[in-house]
């Protein structure tokens, strides 16, 4: 479904802009990936004994797949609130540059900071990618309404996926339950691999996968943090060395 041209009078209504944002949910293959991921999160929550309402609330409040998986799997494996919070906050640092990069696209000279709170909450990797793709085709003064429409649409799809995944994990034979749980690592690995832009990203992904099983043998409670910060720093070092050699 193509968006109307920028000068079209349709854009004068912010309700219409919201509706276009909502409809854009159906225009991206990433919606399918999100659906699969949140199906997996619903199943994961069921198998780690969280309630359905709890996982739905986590989707509304947290709205970041990796953070939700870290939260559920760390609490489920007996981590304390502080250990889980540290792992979640480190995984969420990546949201900071995303928000910093996306919000200027929506700002006008008259925009108030509080108008940007809801769009900022919706920003996660999918919305980040889609904003760069779609916002240039939306008039600047309608971009907040459009983004909120896109965000509410994606959240709704994911809430439905949570309910379906939770229900399937409770009722399906073990084989299919396992297949739904496998969706999470598969979808995350591949969508992260697709977002790798620089050598540092690829090294961080590969080394992060390889280092965790080694660090996990130490049973520190913050294994993910240790393997992540080490692998990420080494990856940054590789990037720095390579650039210095080029210069």
């Amino acid at each position: 479904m193509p968006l109307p041209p920028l000068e079209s009078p349709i854009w004068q209504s912010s309700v219409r802009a919201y509706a276009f944002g909502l409809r854009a949910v159906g225009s991206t293959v990433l919606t399918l990936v999100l659906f699969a991921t949140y199906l997996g999160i619903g199943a994961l929550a069921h198998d780690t004994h969280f309630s359905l309402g709890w996982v739905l609330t986590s989707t509304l409040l947290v709205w970041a797949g990796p953070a939700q998986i870290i939260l559920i799997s760390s609490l489920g494996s007996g981590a304390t609130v502080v250990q889980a919070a540290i792992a979640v906050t480190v995984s969420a640092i990546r949201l900071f540059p995303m928000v910093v990069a996306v919000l200027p696209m929506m700002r006008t000279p008259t925009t108030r900071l509080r108008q940007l709170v809801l769009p900022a909450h919706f920003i996660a990797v999918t919305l980040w990618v889609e904003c760069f793709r779609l916002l240039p085709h939306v008039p600047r003064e309608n971009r907040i309404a459009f983004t909120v429409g896109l965000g509410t649409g994606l959240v709704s799809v994911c809430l439905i996926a949570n309910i379906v995944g939770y229900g399937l994990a409770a009722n399906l034979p073990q084989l299919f339950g396992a297949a739904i749980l496998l969706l999470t690592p598969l979808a995350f690995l591949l969508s992260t691999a697709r977002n790798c832009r620089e050598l540092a990203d690829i090294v961080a992904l590969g080394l992060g996968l390889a280092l965790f099983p080694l660090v996990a043998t130490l049973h520190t409670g913050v294994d993910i943090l240790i393997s992540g910060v080490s692998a990420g720093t080494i990856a940054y070092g590789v990037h720095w060395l390579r650039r210095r050699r080029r210069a």
Partner: protein
Amino acid sequence: MSDFIGDWHALLVLVLAGFLPNEIWRMLGLWLGGGVDEGSELLIWVRAVATAILAGVIAQILVLPPGALASVPGILRYGAVAVGLVAFVAAKRSILVGVVCGELVMLAGQLWWR
């Protein structure tokens, strides 16, 4: 209510360990945004660490699988993800093709194994 969400303690844990530590970065980005260059060295490091943490989470689910996934032998879990990755690369970075191939390998392996 208590059956649906669980007790208030569970909700408090969600806010303290999930919502606040996650949302703070979005609000910081909103508050401080504009002054940070997206290509800066600090952000390249931040992105590398965030990617590696996500990789750690993926590895954790595969190495220490939750619930029903624990019934799948390790070699089949790793094999399915490896096939998914190869299919993803072969299909010009199609996430869908990768996910479907990985899932099929796991399902076929499980059926063949028993």
